[in-house]
């Protein structure tokens, strides 16, 4: 009896020390990850002198909420936020529609040249975006989309990465399901909509979230394709605080905090699907 008790205690102790080590490591990792966010928030509330102070001052002595007001007034952030939301939401919905359809075709349908087409499509991922900027600008100008929402939305309604990611996921759905559905008289589209899409929720959420974040953070494309404040987005506003000789850190950080809040809210609500999606598709 006593020896059993000792064995149990040993197990408990081992379990405790394992958990203790695990939680300590997780805590350290978490602290490292959160440090830049913490720094961003505290810097946004510092005076310019405190920003530069050495050794660094972690907590501002006097909270400078005025930095937020100054940052907000530095540019028409109202327009910027509206545009960022509008463009991020429309491009995300658009990309989901095109990616789901294309990924299904590549994953579940047989057609001539499928693999070659897929390889060519993947090949386009190798072309650096910067190289295409000038030709794209010329195209957008000739289409008379320059400084219009079309320029900021339409070119981003399809994404090779989204198609690739969903295709990989769709391929893991057994073909037998499709066969059974077809025997029961289910059309391809109905099968896609009723079976594939619900089963692929995590992957679709991942594509959506990555797209939303990418669109929210897009800077150069928006800057190049627009010329009026009414068409621009939050990252363009953030660039305003830096010049080649210096940066107004406290205002930049205040604007960055404002810019990151919507993304954080989105992540809090969708983190379960996001993590599942990333884990299942094997993409890190």
């Amino acid at each position, binding site marked *: 009896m006593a020896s059993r008790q000792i064995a149990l205690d040993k197990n408990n102790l081992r379990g405790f020390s394992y958990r203790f080590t695990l939680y300590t490591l997780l805590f350290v990792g978490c602290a490292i990850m959160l440090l830049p966010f913490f720094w961003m928030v505290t810097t946004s509330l510092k005076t310019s*002198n405190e920003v*530069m102070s*050495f050794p660094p001052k972690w907590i501002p002595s006097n909270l400078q909420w005025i930095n937020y007001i100054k940052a907000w007034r*530095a540019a028409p952030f109202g327009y910027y936020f509206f545009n960022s939301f509008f463009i991020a939401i429309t491009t995300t919905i658009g990309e989901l529609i095109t990616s789901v359809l294309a990924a299904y075709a590549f994953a579940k349908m047989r057609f001539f040249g499928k693999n070659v087409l897929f390889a060519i499509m993947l090949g386009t991922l190798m072309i650096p975006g910067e190289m295409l900027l000038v030709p794209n600008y010329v195209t957008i100008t000739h289409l008379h989309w320059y400084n219009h929402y079309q320029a900021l939305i339409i070119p981003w309604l399809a994404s090779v990465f989204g198609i690739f990611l969903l295709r990989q996921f769709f391929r893991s759905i057994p073909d037998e399901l499709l066969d059974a559905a077809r025997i029961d008289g289910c059309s391809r589209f109905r099968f896609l909509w009723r079976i594939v899409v619900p089963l692929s929720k995590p992957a679709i959420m991942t594509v959506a979230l990555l797209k939303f974040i990418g669109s929210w953070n897009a800077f150069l494309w928006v*800057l190049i394709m627009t010329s009026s404040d009414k068409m621009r987005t939050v990252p363009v506003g953030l660039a305003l605080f830096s*010049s080649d*000789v210096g*940066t107004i850190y406290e205002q930049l950080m205040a604007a960055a905090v404002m810019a990151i809040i919507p993304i954080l809210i989105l992540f809090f609500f969708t983190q379960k699907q996001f993590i599942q999606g990333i884990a299942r598709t094997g993409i890190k």
Partner: protein
Amino acid sequence: MKSWKFLTFGLIVVFLFGLFVFADDAVTITFWHAMSSGHQPHLQKLVDGFLAENPNIAIELVYQGGYGDLQQKINAAVVAGNPPTLAQVYENWTTPILEVLYPIGPQMTDAEKADIIDGLVGSNTYNGILYTVPFNKSIMVLYYRTDLVPNPPTTWAEYLQMAKDVTLDEDGDGTIDRFGTAFRPSANPEQFLNFLEEAGGSILNDDWTEAAINNAAGLAAMEFAVSLAPYSLITSGYLSDPFAAGQLCMFIDTSAGYYYNNQSAGTGGFEMGVARVPVGPVNQKSMIQGTNVAVFDMNQTQAQKDAAVKFARFLLRPENTVYWAEMGGYQPVTKSAYETEEWENFVAAHSYQVPMSAQMLDGFSQILHPNYGDMREVVGTAFEEAMVGEATPIDALDDAAAQIQDLLAE
């Protein structure tokens, strides 16, 4: 009869009104710039002043990101055929797009042209014609801590000695805690180009046929820079950050950085002084940095080009270049501006402007070669390799010269 008179009177009024409206049609011009939030209100004020004088002109100020973004956008717009009416441009951006520019100089009076600071005339003149005019110009000067450097160095030898004297390894662990000076080789190759000019050298020979950076003058400049290396902080970040942390005693930087550097001094709890760069073997010149203003001649109406030239000339007026310098941290770009009472009062109230103004009148600009941007990067890499000891000064320069030669052949 009465109604006839009334009708006639009415027609005349309508005609005159129409004449007024259509003859003096409003012209809208667009100005692409890269001025950050701190500068934009001052630029807007200049525009407002211009609009008050010219109610029939409208100016649309468009922020186009940093200088790199602005350059990309200008290049793309030129290819697409829709550049703005006016834009900020660096010298080397101008050379390849010269044929789509509307030269401003021929629309200016001789007095206006003669008033531009000598160091800025050449850098705005292409094929003998003044195409662009200087806009936001700053000059490289020496910043120093007055508590550690009571008398700023005036010669290269003094600079080296001073850097050596104030470098400190407080705890004796072999790691320097306070550097005599600092360089940003890859981010700011202008620090080396300053030494090169002071040694009488240049990146290219006079007719741009050969790289000249590895000649005797180039070697003298690089050897001097390398002699400073043991006492130098080599970084790619802003120098104002280590300055605030008390890790730095003096450094050569643009006058436009004064605001940030002085703020750092305040944070560090010491006073900052400004001096001309230490004199080199040949001269005491220093590099003028910043952009010019160009007017485009590509799908713009004559009225737009005229309005743009008018605005460019407006910016050169002494009171305006002085305002821009005072508020934006730049230097006035015309000689007469330095003689205005306003500027003299400003300099009297801001002693750091004395060396900056003197240095500005003894400045030099970047070369106009279209591949200057790439050459600048090559120089930055050579400068960095030499400063961190990856290459000897002559090897770094020979390598740079070979790469520059390739760029000349392009």
